[in-house]
């Protein structure tokens, strides 16, 4: 899987529309200075950002699904993604488009979205846990969406509106080394926490009382993992906009291909997630002369893939 991921990254590095659509022969790097500039100045940071975004979204999805003991949890379905988008839009209008401010605001509202969904789900008096959390997430996401709508309405159409619209589509076209520099310090530590606690996360997928009986402090450990997952998602979203379905589809695929145990599912979902986003991004910038936004492609493949998964004979979700 590691080899496959590296191969996808290397291929994406060489795929693009320069000098012609398709593969660039590596030999060109040696004698074409423009090719070097395109690859190392533009394409490399972008591919690396895609790696981080994919790993962050898929890893967060896997861990959140475990923590909520709910295979339908996805950052986009429980208010995290919409919350991040709202926070980012708010920061763009109210403060500045400084990436640090945007990221902090996105992270705060993403966490608030998750907390709100969770509280609401706990308060619903009918249905199983899976259903309740999804219903609550839909409601919270919709509130945030309309909030984003209001913000777009009052935004400066010359300057702020395009920046906000960028969120809704999701894409990596503006990512350079500078943006990558903002992504690294938040995403890497978060992913390190998720990886370090990959076995521990299994314990937290059990009922709190059982996790407690196993000598854990479920509240505290759960909070740490939720914070890491939310931070990674918010950082990825603040750079790449709404990149949907990665956090839902990739964990399911990973658990099917490998094991449900976090020792396998967490690291593997990081690899598969980054391969998937790198692939979609490469496709998006190569296929047409004008770029296809990343979020559109991940949603297309992600939703279609999930639909196929639902129809598989062995697939089931309880409650």
């Amino acid at each position, binding site marked *: 899987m590691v080899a496959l991921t590296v191969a996808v990254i290397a291929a994406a590095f060489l795929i693009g529309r320069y000098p012609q659509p398709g593969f660039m022969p590596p030999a060109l790097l040696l004698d074409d200075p423009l090719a070097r500039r395109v690859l190392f100045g533009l394409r490399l940071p972008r591919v690396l950002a895609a790696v981080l975004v994919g790993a962050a979204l898929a890893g967060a999805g896997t861990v959140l699904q*475990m923590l909520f*003991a*709910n*295979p339908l949890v996805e950052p986009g379905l429980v208010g995290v993604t919409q919350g991040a988008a709202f926070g980012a839009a708010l920061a763009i209008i109210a403060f500045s488009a400084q990436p640090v401010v945007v990221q902090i605001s996105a992270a705060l509202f993403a966490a608030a979205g998750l907390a709100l969904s969770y509280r609401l789900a706990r308060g619903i008096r009918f249905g199983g*846990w*899976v259903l309740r959390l999804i219903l609550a997430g839909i409601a919270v996401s919709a509130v945030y969406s309309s909030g984003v709508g209001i913000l777009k309405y009052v935004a400066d159409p010359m300057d702020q509106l395009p920046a906000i619209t960028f969120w809704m589509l999701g894409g990596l076209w503006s990512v350079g080394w500078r943006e990558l520099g903002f992504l690294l310090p938040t995403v890497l530590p978060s992913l390190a926490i998720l990886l*370090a*606690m*990959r*076995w*521990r996360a*299994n*314990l937290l*997928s*059990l*009922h709190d*009382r*059982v996790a*407690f*009986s*196993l*000598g*854990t*402090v479920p509240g505290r*450990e759960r909070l740490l993992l939720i914070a890491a997952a939310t931070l990674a998602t918010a950082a990825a979203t603040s750079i790449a906009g709404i990149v949907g379905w990665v956090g839902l589809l990739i964990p399911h695929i990973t*658990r099917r291909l490998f*094991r*449900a*145990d976090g*020792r396998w599912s967490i690291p593997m979902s990081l690899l598969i997630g980054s391969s998937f986003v790198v692939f979609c991004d490469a496709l998006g910038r190569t296929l047409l002369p004008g770029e296809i936004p990343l979020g559109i492609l991940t949603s297309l493949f992600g939703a279609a893939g999930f639909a196929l998964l639902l129809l598989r004979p062995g697939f*089931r*979700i*309880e*409650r």
Partner: protein
Amino acid sequence: MRKRAGERESDAQLQQDARRILTLAGVEFAYEGTAEPVLRGIDFAVRTGSVTALLGPNGSGKTTLLNLCLGWLKPQRGAVQLRGTALDRIPRRQMGRTMSLVPQDEHLPFEYSVLEYVLLGRAPYLTTLQLPDETHVAAARSALATVGAAQWAQRSITTLSAGEKQLVMTARSLAQEPQLLLLDEPTSHLDLANTVRLLDCIAMLADAGVTVLLTTHDPHVASACATEVALMREGRILFDGPTAESLTTERLSATYGIDVEVHQIERHRVVTYGKPSTDAS
């Protein structure tokens, strides 16, 4: 921290503690936001090496009492002590090595293998960032073998029947190598054969020196496995003593609030209730 009742350290007290693994003194408990306590005036002890059953009708507070023993719930009044030390003074991991819980049922959303699931019982022997190694896997396998489920190691837990799941949950608790095993209604989802299998397993653990505390609403289960039975009704312990003294016609009738009769058939105790069968000769 509030001074708890029963924190006296006289010699007599220490001697008593050696024979009692768990003691509850003057415990009162009400769930948050409710005025009416679920448990009142609970003075109760689990003797080291015993199989103690909490027996009573649905809603009598058995599971709440079990959760207090686990430390998952904290009493508003009174003290719960493990060998003379208040539960919340004991480090969490040490608690995990001393006491383990088999819940009534467990929602398992992901397709863990049975071995991966049982391995979770090794958590109290690992630090937060440690991964289980071969010795932990061996301990998990041996726990599975103890309940007679070694052959299921690679099966997915989502494919287990209710009876198989109960045994696997028990194995997960045994991987903690506990001195005190708490079982919450262990037989309520099981058919006759699986009930017998589980009771055999409890008897074997008791022989191995594990103290067992279980809740049940079935007097036959208590009769079949317990050395001591505490009878519970409406949040109180009506009687607490050796099984033969607890399971009498008068005491069981008072516990369930209906007329029952306890009969001795050879070495078995049988509880009869309701109208006699119409086809009986």
